[in-house]
């Protein structure tokens, strides 16, 4: 077998990576408690206690940083750690006395502890200018700027409930942007500039035309070459054409930017899962710290934090007070862009007299 090329063996079995306390109490956890921000204990039916310390992470990590984590895991918890579905790092301790020293060591390498319970956890995000050809904004940079600004809400648990932020750098929405309490979405606002010189070499014209959800793209001959033309009035900048054809770039420094969406959620707790809805149609890309974005988000967080009832997620709160009140209280101007005009638009119109004044 040794000479045959090994494929399709799959990931390592998770059991290899579980600390003994978990193996012993697997499926026997009884309840958990928050001990302090970023630290919780799970108590087993057997009485065993597992302490979790959660540290914030930039997600984009060097191997050196991962090694530092590994060292801390060795030092405090037998080498066992995990990552969360929002990309934080969790250390799995059995000794309560190790909690504070671990936290201190984490602080030393620049990693805050928090994100559990009524707090803001790490921002689920994507590649941006680091690695993706499709990005209308950067990912890591915006996330860093926003989290710096919201730092206290990660390290403390002073919010009415959980608040989940996500960022995607284009409409493909890798990540959870479509169902987040607050979502930051990279957007183009200018139709594709067709590269007529090269299109016929790189792309299949019928595919390109077919890719457009609004039928804005028609085959056309330009300067004697087979190409396509875009009816600019029908373009809503989805970049689906660019995904299938590199000769249709939309990225444009003057017009790219981000939009802000609010009120989505994933969990079934209380309210059914909801999509995020458009709050701010456009904010400019302003690297390195995207001040318009950070301040808009802080305002939204604080508005929600000071008005929502206990447990009420952003979307639940807005649903209770109504969107008109949300726009009034947030000072965001309601514009044509907020009104849906895609396929199911009519179902978003207000079809009752349930109004507040």
């Amino acid at each position, binding site marked *: 077998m040794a000479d045959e090329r090994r494929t399709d063996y799959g990931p390592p079995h998770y059991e290899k990576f579980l600390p003994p306390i978990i193996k012993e109490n697997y499926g026997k956890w009884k309840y958990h408690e928050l001990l302090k921000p970023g630290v919780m204990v799970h108590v087993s039916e057997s009485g065993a206690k597992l302490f979790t310390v959660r540290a914030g992470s930039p997600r984009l990590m060097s191997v050196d940083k991962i090694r530092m984590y590994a060292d801390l895991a060795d030092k405090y918890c037998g080498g066992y750690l995990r990552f969360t579905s929002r990309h934080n790092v969790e250390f799995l301790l059995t000794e309560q006395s190790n909690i504070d020293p671990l936290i201190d060591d984490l602080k030393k390498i620049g990693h805050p502890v928090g994100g559990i319970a009524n707090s803001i956890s790490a921002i689920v995000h994507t590649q941006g200018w680091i690695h993706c050809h499709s990005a209308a904004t950067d990912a890591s940079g915006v996330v860093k700027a926003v989290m710096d600004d919201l730092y206290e809400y990660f390290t403390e648990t002073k919010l009415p409930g959980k608040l989940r932020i996500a960022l995607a750098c284009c*409409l493909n*929405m890798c990540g959870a942007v*479509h169902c987040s309490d607050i979502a930051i*979405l990279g*957007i183009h*606002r*200018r139709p594709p500039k067709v590269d007529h010189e090269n299109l016929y070499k790189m792309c299949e014209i019928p595919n390109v035309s077919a890719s457009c*959800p*609004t039928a804005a793209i028609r085959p056309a001959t330009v300067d004697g070459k087979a190409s396509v033309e875009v009816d600019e009035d029908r*373009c*809503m*900048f*989805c970049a689906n054409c660019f995904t299938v054809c590199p000769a249709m770039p939309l990225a*444009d420094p*003057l*017009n790219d930017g981000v*939009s802000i969406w609010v*009120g989505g959620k994933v969990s079934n707790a209380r309210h059914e899962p909801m*999509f*995020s*809805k*458009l*709050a701010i*149609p*456009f904010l400019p890309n302003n690297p390195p710290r995207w001040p318009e974005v950070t301040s808009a988000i802080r305002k939204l967080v604080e508005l929600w934090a000071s008005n929502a009832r206990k447990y009420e997620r952003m979307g639940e709160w807005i649903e*209770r*007070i*109504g*969107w*008109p*009140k*949300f*726009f009034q209280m947030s000072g965001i101007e*309601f*514009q*044509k*862009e*907020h*009104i*849906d*005009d*895609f396929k199911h*638009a*009519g*179902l*978003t*119109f*207000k*079809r*009752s*007299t*349930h*109004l*507040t*004044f």
Partner: protein
Amino acid sequence: MADALPKTPMLDELEKGGWPSFVTEIKLAAEKNPMGKDLLGLLERSYKEKIGHWKHGGIVGVMGYGGGVIGRYNDLPEEYPNISHFHTMRINQPAGWFYTSEALRGICDIWEKRGSGLTNMHGSTGDIILLGTSTDQLEPTFQDLAKIDFDIGGSGSDVRTPSCCCGMARCEWACYDTMAACYDFTMTYQDELHRPAFPYKFKFKFSGCPNDCVASIARSDMSIIGTWRDEIQIDKDAVKEYADSGMDIDSDVVGNCPGKCMAWDGKELKINDKFCVHCMHCINAMPKALRPGKDRGATILIGSKAPIVEGALLSSVLIPFIKMEPPYQEIKDLVDKMWDLWCEEGKNRERIGEFIQRIGLGNFLDEIEVDPIPEMVAHPRENPYVFYEDYYEDEDEDDEEGDDE
């Protein structure tokens, strides 16, 4: 006249039972009029065969009017000659459907003479329906009706006969004078009501409060529904009386409030009016204790209709609150703009609600020069497919963006 009625064993079954029988009514008419007799025969036949016997109507009507008559012919004219034509006339009811016995008798006398003697009091749109006459009687009927001041209602692609709830005439909750408004609009749009010139029909319905007793939000292209924007008027003593008389205010009233803005501590009922959605429930439940506020007007909604073709619609908010004062000029100006646009751009048989969905509410508002406001939507868009309208040109670094931003 004295001909025996046809044998109608199946219909006869429908003379039994507690609810008043339409068969009895047709028989009453049939005693005086051969149309009724033939109608009985034809209907009995439909009951046996489980199929209708009416054909598409041709264009019939009265002079100078393009609508108001539904032409109807049966497909067995030899067997039922008295109803070979059997056209219906739609007569514009008085606002609120109030009558004097005298007015009713006037109509009866005309219709006994000129038609089948059968009516619908009323049709679903609100008209007095004079059910069945022959082509030659249409104009004389109209002439006779004119003498007692009854005019014809709508049909075809025109304004349909507006209707309204009894409002201030008999209801304590009317937030504006529905009958006055209904009459006023009816008179203003006489031409549009009588001469079809739209892409499709257009209905107005006026309800005095959100209980919407004429179903305007479901059945009219423009729904005018009364509401208020200040505080609900509370009579504390009357609240106490309800409580004392055993009402469970907490579960019956507070627990049903969709605004979740009421509180009852066993003594005092508090309403946080800022979050009241003006649903009427608490007022309905405690009519002696609660009343709509004093700053009253109406919400204007647009676009409801039955399913054909694009699916049924409820009306959606166009103006959240407007004072309802004659001559209602602001509303009428808006109506004019909407009609101009719809007549210009609407497709044949496309109701205005479907039209708005097709061109987009945002574009519609642009065209009729109304600013978008959040009250118009249940929620902002969920999809990211935004038609941003302006972009910066790089050749020319001037700010090309419009005032929208």
